[in-house]
């Protein structure tokens, strides 16, 4: 399940740093699966229709590592991003895939318990964001990565990562306030 994030200002706990000398064991793998499996699948869904396969291969690649990465969560997101992009390139066209995924894919989230935000509406609004903003928001909100890690992941600066995050949130707010937003609005 997704990692619980406190309301208000997001103070996400630090990255899962591991001892680089120790390889990934079953205990750490189980903890990573429980805490980050769902968010990783959500992150991989930004690029491909088979996000579970991408995340599965990423975890297998992590298991085969002789030494654990310094920041194992950020490492997993990087592997998922690379594999997802590679899989997206292997498909016919990225735009076609994204439109198909947004039209026929399942909602990204489970139904909310407090009815504060409709999960299906949020999924659609998130789908309409540009990929740069979308992956930044997913990595930050549900992945728990810091802006430093997101900048390293997306190969941009920290200020660019934060700018994308803020712009994405603003666009989501507009879409969520307006149930029928225009497609070309950014």
């Amino acid at each position: 399940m997704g990692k619980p994030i406190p309301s208000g200002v997001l103070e996400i706990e630090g990255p899962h740093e591991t001892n680089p000398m120790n390889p990934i064991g079953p205990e750490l793998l189980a903890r990573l699966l429980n805490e980050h499996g769902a968010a990783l699948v959500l992150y991989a869904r930004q690029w491909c229709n088979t996000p579970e396969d991408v995340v599965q291969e990423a975890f297998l690649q992590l298991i085969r590592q002789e030494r654990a990465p310094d920041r194992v969560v950020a490492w997993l997101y990087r592997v998922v991003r690379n594999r997802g992009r590679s899989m997206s390139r292997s498909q016919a066209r990225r735009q076609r895939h994204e439109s198909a995924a947004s039209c026929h894919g399942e909602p990204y989230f489970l139904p909310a318990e407090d009815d504060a935000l409709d999960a299906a509406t949020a999924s659609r609004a998130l789908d309409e964001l540009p990929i740069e903003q979308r992956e930044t928001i997913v990595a930050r909100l549900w992945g728990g990565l810091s802006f430093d890690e997101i900048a390293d992941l997306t190969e941009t600066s920290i200020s660019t990562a934060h700018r994308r995050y803020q712009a994405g949130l603003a666009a989501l707010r507009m879409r969520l306030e307006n149930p029928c937003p225009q497609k070309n609005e950014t």
Partner: protein
Amino acid sequence: MSAEERDVKPAELPPALKSLEAALASLVPRTPSLDRDRLMFEAGRQAAVRSQAGPVCRWAWPTLAAATMAAALLVVLLVRPAAPGADRIVYVPVDPQPARLTPGSLPNETPDRRGSEPKGAVQAMAPMFDIPARAAVAGAPHAPAPYFDLRDCLLSREPQLWRLPGQNSAGSGLPTEPASYAELRDELLRGSASG
């Protein structure tokens, strides 16, 4: 977008965006359908493989490196290339004609096969006879002694010079050889009386 907006910190989001952020964070992503059993099996298998092959892997590279170095040194030792030799050309001056013996060029004393050689004998005889310089070189201790060469030369050329007093020397002006002991004694006595 201005530079101030670009440098804004994450905590400086507008309040409306902060509330949206919190609402979005409350959404729970769908549970993935990952093959958890396969992942755990792979993790356990890899851990077992590492625990078995760990000590070997730690020593594999140092052992291989040391063995390679030892083999290389052995090959170098066995197939050692020959020391580079340089042909050296030595020019030895050779006199076109053998040098003549001069009184000043002879050594004072040369080794003798029978002992000491008469001092100054070669010096005295050198002007009179042609003696090769090789026989009188001081740096050639195993060369034939010049004394004996000189003696043989003298004996062969001037036998009359070595006749004793009283010997018969017809035509040479030397005294005749005494025939007996008495004649020799008398001749010696005459010589001592006259001298």
